[in-house]
């Protein structure tokens, strides 16, 4: 039964990746801008030795880590309340609230955040109302961190909720029965059993941040891996081989990340 889906994967996914990888070893003619099919390591050489591209890569990874941690911290108590405290009706309402943003356009939501974070936006207006100092986060990494954390939050809440909801009541009763007070039970039983859910959610938040190029374009002012690739594919430079080479960076990072997540049992939680 594994045959057809595997063939599908090979043709449409792995084949595309292979073409991408092969094209990373090509280059373009500096004068004509035409693609040269000669094997060269120039692109990788540039990426490995240019401090600009290092910086961009580390900035992106660092942002992905920050967003993932932020979402985990916000999602856990929320998911815990949904799964183990809220009465059924409340749970349904919260579910709708979590999913509702996903039904609206992603672009519309990012633009909405632009309006909120602008110098004369809703946030500064509210801060002024309550007498707090005005912020100037618009088009900074802080703005990106906030917007990224906001848009990917549902992808963290749902797997964590699923993991928490699956813990049988008898596990918690057993822990209390054996002498575990509430904090002990939480730390030794609930958190470890929710960990696969957190790992699964982090795959989404981490990889989505790593690959996104729209948010950095709209609410940031510095380059992220996604922007660089985007500019080289469709921008003025039109250097497809370099875009392909730089795209291997997030691919390698994700491969490492998935290996770690697998160890935490993320795939059993999905």
């Amino acid at each position, binding site marked *: 039964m594994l045959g057809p889906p595997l063939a599908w994967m090979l043709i449409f996914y792995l084949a595309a990746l292979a073409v991408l990888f092969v094209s990373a070893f090509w280059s373009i003619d500096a004068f004509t801008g035409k693609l040269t099919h000669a094997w060269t390591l120039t692109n990788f050489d540039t990426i490995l030795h240019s401090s600009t591209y290092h910086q961009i890569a580390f900035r992106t990874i660092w942002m992905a880590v920050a967003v993932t941690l932020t979402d985990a911290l916000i999602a856990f108590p929320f998911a815990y309340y949904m799964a183990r405290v809220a009465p059924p009706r409340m749970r349904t309402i919260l579910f709708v609230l979590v999913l509702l943003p996903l039904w609206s356009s992603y672009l519309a939501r990012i633009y909405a955040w632009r309006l909120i974070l602008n110098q004369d936006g809703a946030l500064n207006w509210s801060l002024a109302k309550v007498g707090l100092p005005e912020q100037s986060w618009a088009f900074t990494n802080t703005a990106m961190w906030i917007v990224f954390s906001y848009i990917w939050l549902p992808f963290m809440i749902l797997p964590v909720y699923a993991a928490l909801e699956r813990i*049988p009541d*008898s*596990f918690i*009763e*057993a*822990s*209390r*029965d*054996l*002498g*575990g*007070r509430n904090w*002990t039970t939480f730390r*030794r*039983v609930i958190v*470890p*059993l929710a960990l696969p859910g957190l790992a699964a959610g982090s795959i989404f938040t981490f990889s989505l941040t790593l690959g996104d190029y729209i948010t950095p374009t709209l609410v940031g002012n510095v380059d992220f891996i996604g922007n660089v690739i985007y500019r080289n594919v469709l921008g003025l430079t039109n250097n497809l081989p370099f875009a392909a080479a730089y795209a291997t960076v997030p691919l390698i990072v994700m491969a490492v990340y998935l290996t770690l997540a697998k160890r935490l049992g993320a795939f059993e939680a999905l």
Partner: protein
Amino acid sequence: MATPALADSEPAAHPVPAAELDVRLDGIRKTYGDVVAVDRVDLEIPAGEFFTLLGPSGSGKTTTLRLIAGFERPDEGHIELAGADVTNRAPYERDVNTVFQDYALFPHMTVAENVAYGLRVKRVPRAERKRRVEEILKVVRLPELGDRKPVQLSGGQRQRIALARSLVNTPKVLLLDEPLGALDLKLRQEMQIELKRIQREVSDVGITFVYVTHDQEEALTMSDRLAVFNKGRIEQIGAPAEVYECPATEFVAGFVGVSNVLERDGKKFTVRPEKIRMQFDEAGDGELGRIRDVVYVGMFTRYIVELDSGGELTVVRQNLETSSQEALESRGKRVRLEWRPEHTFEIERGGNE
């Protein structure tokens, strides 16, 4: 350890028997909305006893167990453990441990970590923890499985580990919620014997076993005493033989063993099927009737006899000489049933069954 509360009880104020009680329920009532789960239950279980709460599902036996464990709080009444009122104490403040029906072994811990859990949260030093875990794994006869994860164990092994995880804490009272319910018949019978062996083995520290089951045979084989639950109330408390031979109510007569209830002269009484002698000649004392149905069970045959003066009795006969063919051919035959008057017991009308 058998009389632990004696030390701090004043001899004049507390008579000795009260101190030797491990569990005392006094007028316990528990409702869920309109449903009365447990209705004014009184119970006294002396230290070291194997006590069974027997009843059909929804009879309140599991709720009673959960009240003793502290997972539920009663609406009315008091719960005492070893002389101390624990009605309002949390489960982690009670010297009881529970073996859950689904075992509730923590999947993210190894067997040894599971068993050590109670000692660990009570900050027992590592060396002692290790020693006690090894010791109890020997008692349940699974000494080499410490490094496995619960998913790698069979049902019977999980059952033993769940037992070890509770026993390692040497609680005053061990609560068992249908612990053998998930096992197949053969394994269940093995574990019944195992459980009794383990209870004897830990008897020097004096652990009281409170066992919940809906299986009357299990209750009769294992218990020192048992309480028969029906609709949130206790219908009868007594030793297995007492409850089986002289059921107090019609419900008990039916639930423990086969319901053999006759009404004669406005009085109801019961007689156990193996106490009835069935004769194929109609001359003599006893009740006359006709065999309505025959069930061949191998070791014995069960006959259902319709009596001329009304009512039905089940009769059990060992297949000493009869073959299955002969037994089955007796259907429809006229018979005479005899029993000794001392084997009949008059029962209360109660039991609302």
